């Protein structure tokens, strides 16, 4: 078995609540319940997503040893997708239309497609994607080694189905809320507004480098987004409510 990757993209997620200890057999049993199931012989277009292990891509075997990722737990899930090759459909449709000497009706095209799917899909092999993740139980953190939206969604769904825990991406809000900031700072974080930096690429004398807070949402207190420099500024610096308008005026200048 090869070692875990040492390059690529990673998306961190957090969870709240307790997860089964990955060193226990029970953890492997949870994965096993949501193991990957093959669609190799399926006769319809479908997607199969489930856990496998780094050592065994079939999803038939799970044991805590196979999930050993040093200080973390090495998870792997597999996404198989079987779909009708559109080129084949086009070839068959063209042949049918050529034989008939005219275009097929919508109904005939649908029937042809259904017939071809029945014939061809059992012979089509699914595409396979293996995605890794490192789970750190004590930190309630999991690092997903994929950045695509579909992989993130598939992982979140599979994780929830397996452990009944909702994953939260470690975005700027969640990362702040999960940190050891004070409760007051966390409340401020939830309401904080962007700093609008002044456009100083203008003629000298037309600007003063004082950051301007963006407009606050209605009915929202903004303890942080004050602009103390505004009152001192010799130029008519943008007030929070007019920052954007002032910016466009500056551009014109």
């Amino acid at each position: 078995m090869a070692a875990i990757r040492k390059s690529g993209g990673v998306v961190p997620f957090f969870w709240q609540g307790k997860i089964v200890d990955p060193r226990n057999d029970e953890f492997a049993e949870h994965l096993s319940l949501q193991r990957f199931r093959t669609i190799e012989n399926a006769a319809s277009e479908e997607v199969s997503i489930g856990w496998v292990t780094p050592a065994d891509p079939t999803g038939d075997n799970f044991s805590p040893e196979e999930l050993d990722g040093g200080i973390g737990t090495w998870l792997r899930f597999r996404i198989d997708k079987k779909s009708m090759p559109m080129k084949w459909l086009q070839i068959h449709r063209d042949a049918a239309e050529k034989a008939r000497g005219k275009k097929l009706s919508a109904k005939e095209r649908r029937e042809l497609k259904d017939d071809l799917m029945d014939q061809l899909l059992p012979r089509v092999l699914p595409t396979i994607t293996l995605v890794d993740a490192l789970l750190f139980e004590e930190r309630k953190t999991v690092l997903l080694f994929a950045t695509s939206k579909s992989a993130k969604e598939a992982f979140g769904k599979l994780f929830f189905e397996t452990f009944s825990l909702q994953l939260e991406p470690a975005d700027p809000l969640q990362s702040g809320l999960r940190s050891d900031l004070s409760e007051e700072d966390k409340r401020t974080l939830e309401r904080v507004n962007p700093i609008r930096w002044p456009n100083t690429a203008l003629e000298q004398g037309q600007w003063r480098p004082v950051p301007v807070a963006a407009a606050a949402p209605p009915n929202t207190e903004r303890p942080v987004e004050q602009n103390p420099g505004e009152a001192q500024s010799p130029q008519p610096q943008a007030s929070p409510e007019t920052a954007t308008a002032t910016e466009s005026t500056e551009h014109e200048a």
Partner: protein
Amino acid sequence: MSQANQGAETHGFLGEEFLTWLWFKWETDGGEFTLSGGRIVGIALDDFLSFAALTEDETEQTLRRGLPTRTAEARTALRQGHRLRKARVLIAEGERQWTATIDAPTLSLSGVKLPDDAEECESEMDRTADRAANWLALHEIVQALYRLFLKERLHDDYQSTGAEKQANWMAL
């Protein structure tokens, strides 16, 4: 999963401010940060910068290769008040060095390169353990740096202290 998308949408700007702040700190303070527990890490911006558009109609600007932070285009973007949306950064702690592109609105990382495997690694299992530790360390460093930024950013005096200093630097 919808919650997270919401977090990136509502607070993605904070990630952009964080990344721009890293650049500011690197240029003005040398890029060395002392994290909790006394860990000292060094940060430098590398060969890729992407600036967020100020409005939806504006064009995003991307600078690649060489030293983009030294270019006139980068200085102009800062003077115009642009924040960084993505940047490739070098992160060093002791003898370990990572490179990664930080996507500011989501704080996800792409194009990561971990430090070389430790010399003591004799088996694939050893390598996995070593790399897992390095992946976690990278994640924790980014989170710790972001926390440092937030401590400053959420302070009552931020507008008249850190933000004004950064505005002066951006105006250079």
